[in-house]
């Protein structure tokens, strides 16, 4: 039986972090389709306009125009149930709580790695 294609939305304003995340996703087995959004506003648009639902959203915290908390709130407000994993270099309890309150399902710290993404993909049965 053919494995389902995994569609991921990577929301991150820094190019270097997008490049690393994309490579780590591919290595972890979750990089079939990876769309990118450079801020929360673009992320909300991508989710709204997507031809097929994403299987996973990786959401950075600090971004221009619209941050990750707000983007998460708006995506949940649209009734989207796609797993959203918050990604931040801080990892302070207040940050994690804010993301979970906004509607994120999980949190992981930067920098992303093959191992961290492997755990995330397995948790949401995407591996």
């Amino acid at each position, binding site marked *: 039986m053919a494995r389902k294609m995994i569609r991921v939305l990577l929301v991150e304003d820094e190019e270097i972090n997008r490049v690393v995340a994309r490579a780590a996703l591919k290595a972890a087995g979750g990089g079939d389709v990876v769309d990118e959004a450079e801020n929360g506003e673009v992320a909300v648009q991508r989710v709204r306009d997507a031809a097929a639902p994403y299987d996973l959203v990786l959401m950075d915290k600090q971004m221009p125009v619209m941050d990750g908390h707000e983007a998460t709130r708006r995506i949940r407000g649209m009734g989207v149930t796609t797993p959203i994993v918050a990604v931040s270099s801080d990892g302070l309890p207040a940050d994690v709580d804010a993301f979970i309150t906004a509607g994120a399902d999980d949190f992981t710290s*930067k920098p992303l790695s093959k191992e961290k993404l492997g755990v995330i993909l397995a948790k949401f049965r995407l591996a």
Partner: protein
Amino acid sequence: MEYSNLRRQIIFMKKNLFDQGYLDEQFNQLEELQDESSPNFVEEVAALFFKDSSRLLTNIEQAIDKYPQDFYRLDSLVQQLKGSGSSIGALRMKNECSVFKANCNDRNLEGCRRSLQKMKREHATLKQKLESYFQLLRQVGPRDYAVSSRK
């Protein structure tokens, strides 16, 4: 053999970069992401980092010289630099960013200035060391780079 010497030099150079605290485990993670489809991945990521970090250091320097100082903006710029440094495993840069952020939090302008000078020195040193490292790797060739990176 010249080839064996090169490989020994690469291993030794990389060990030094770790032992002296310039790099952390994230650099190994990057090397593990390198494969035949992206044989220069680590060097490309390093180039991205140095492009980003040079721009950010310039912006930080300009922001520090402005009056009145905007510590919020300074903190935001250094946070970006810290994140970028984390992606490549630039440990000393990352640590100095944390010192800078603490100075911002304390609104300690002189502390920020000292920290910026240190960040610039660490940045220049890391750039020079990584350029030498990648130069050696290019001599060895992409296939054997994957083997060297396991050390």
